[in-house]
């Protein structure tokens, strides 16, 4: 197999832990066989249909991508009517998964030579080459993995192992990047100067669960009563703006899956009635703000709400409560920059040297909570031009940057629950 036939694989229905294990699992499959990419660029989708929303995911994906081969995993796969779907039985072994990939490859239209169609997208899915120490780490772990190993076991067995000479901060950053796909997806950077590429960086929040929740909350405030949101299987969420709490009747993984695809009429809203009380009583609550934040990140997947301007300065009205909300990658640095004012989204990507999806996802989540705005007055635009970061890198670094980098390395470890310095 050669690089010309690398399959672009997207996935659905996995939580961050499973995703991490899955990526390790893929490292044992010939790395030229497939690479993880975003949903729109994928040749093949891998979907775990045992989750709460498995059927919905399968149908939703087929609706959006009728000609795309799918690989579905299940404990007990049922016979499938869909000729473009390949089933694998869990726990998924390397041989079975490789065979499924090959089968899916044969289902691709003859005119679609996998990665040859868009090599840039595949290359960008791995934004930074792994340092040698990290690559060696991955390889050594992969060597330990027996051929038939459940994905969950892969994670537990290998967590925390690393070569003695590996830079812990590099490993932590790599871990953060891997985990980040749970919230910001894996959309590759696009040429922001190419208007044709702009379709890929925008989404319409109102077409997603994010929009349904916003409408439901507005309605609940109007009628001064809690509301519920139902999916195809019944009540998924109960929202009570008076208490500021949401009650979630779906697993986080299932909710994420629901939030990632356009709802297309599959979600409805209604008042909470007295008969709902026993159900709500059995659910754990969480702040509405945290739900809105997560759902916005999931819907965005590294894209911007339609209508957002790339060159208007962003004003951060208020920092998100990042000790109680999910911290997307580079959120602190982005917020730090925006708190100074005068930086547009394009400038932010440039100044911080981070993937566009990090900036766009963070903006989308802040926008959902009303924490950011774009300033388009002539004075603000002029000020933004003055503060625009130079492209020649001649600006001298502040005197304490080296110290800050070391402190931040330490803090990254604390944030990820590990000791950065070993």
């Amino acid at each position, binding site marked *: 197999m050669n690089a010309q036939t690398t399959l672009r694989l997207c996935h659905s229905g996995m939580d961050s832990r499973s995703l991490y294990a899955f990526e390790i699992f893929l490292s044992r499959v010939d790395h030229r066989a497939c690479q993880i990419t975003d949903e729109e660029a994928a040749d093949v989708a891998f979907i775990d249909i045992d989750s709460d929303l498995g059927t919905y995911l399968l149908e939703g994906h087929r609706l959006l991508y009728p000609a795309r081969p799918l690989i579905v995993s299940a404990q007990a796969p049922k016979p499938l009517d869909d000729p473009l779907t390949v089933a694998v039985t869990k726990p998924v072994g390397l041989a079975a998964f490789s065979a499924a990939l090959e089968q899916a490859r044969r289902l691709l239209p003859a005119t679609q030579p996998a990665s040859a169609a868009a090599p840039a997208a595949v290359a960008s899915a791995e934004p930074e080459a792994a340092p040698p120490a990290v690559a060696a780490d991955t390889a050594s772990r992969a060597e330990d993995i027996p051929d038939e190993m459940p994905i969950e076991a892969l994670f537990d067995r290998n967590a925390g192992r690393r070569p003695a000479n590996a830079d812990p901060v590099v490993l932590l950053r790599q871990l953060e990047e891997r985990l980040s796909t749970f919230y910001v997806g894996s959309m590759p950077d696009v040429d922001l100067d190419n208007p044709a590429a702009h379709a890929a960086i925008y989404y319409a929040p109102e077409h997603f669960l994010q929009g349904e929740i916003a409408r439901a909350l507005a309605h609940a405030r109007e009628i001064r009563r809690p509301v519920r949101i139902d999916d195809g299987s019944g009540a998924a969420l109960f929202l009570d703006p008076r208490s500021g709490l949401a009650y979630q009747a779906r697993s986080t993984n299932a909710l994420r899956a629901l939030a990632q695809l356009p709802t297309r009429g599959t979600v409805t809203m209604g008042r909470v009635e007295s008969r709902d009380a026993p159900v709500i009583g059995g659910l754990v609550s969480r702040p509405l703000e945290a739900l809105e934040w997560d759902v916005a990140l999931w819907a965005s997947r590294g894209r911007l709400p339609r209508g957002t301007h790339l060159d208007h300065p962003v004003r951060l009205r*208020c920092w998100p409560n990042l000790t109680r909300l999910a911290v997307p990658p580079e959120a602190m640095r982005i917020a730090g920059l925006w708190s100074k004012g005068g930086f547009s989204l394009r400038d932010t990507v440039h100044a911080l040297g981070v993937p566009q999806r990090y900036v766009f996802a963070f903006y989308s989540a802040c926008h959902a909570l009303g924490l950011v705005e774009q300033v388009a007055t002539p004075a603000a635009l002029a000020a933004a031009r003055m503060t625009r970061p130079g492209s020649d890198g001649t600006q001298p670094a502040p005197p304490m940057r080296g110290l800050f980098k070391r402190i931040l390395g330490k803090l990254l470890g604390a944030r990820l629950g590990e000791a950065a310095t070993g």
Partner: protein
Amino acid sequence: MSHYKIIFAGPVGAGKTTAVSAASDIPPVRTDTAASDEVRDIKPQTTVALDYGAMKLADGSTIHLYGTPGQPRFDFMWEILTEGGIALILLIDNARGDPLRELRFYLGAFSGFIRKTAVAIGVTHADQRSTPRLADYQAELDKAGFGCVPVFEVDARERRDVCLLIEAVLSVIDPVARA
């Protein structure tokens, strides 16, 4: 060797001692209990009602964490402690007294230091009283001319919360710096 410090300030009971302990890699030195009248007669560098902790960095250097005395009668210590500091973490107890008044007081007391460095606000005990909200704190900061400042709910016992506050304040000072 340079003596880099992060300062924790705020009213009594806001969680400064706990926060310094949570972030420190060494057993913290606590002198709050020794802050009696007799102690005040001893020379400042050995007396003092302060908390001390340290973060050990990978290169062997140390970031010193100082918790200032909360009582305004020790305010003479604040200027001494902030000398050479790189950032301020201000903790405010949301469940006691008038938190926004406390915020105004400490912003005023440390305004010179904040203008030279940066501040992040940690709101403690928000689980016991939900108001004022974080947006109310930001409104006070706007009124006082400090602009958009990190304001987070924190549990001072949680190392992760305290470290996020520190990360935020450093990101305000130099967003380009990266681990």
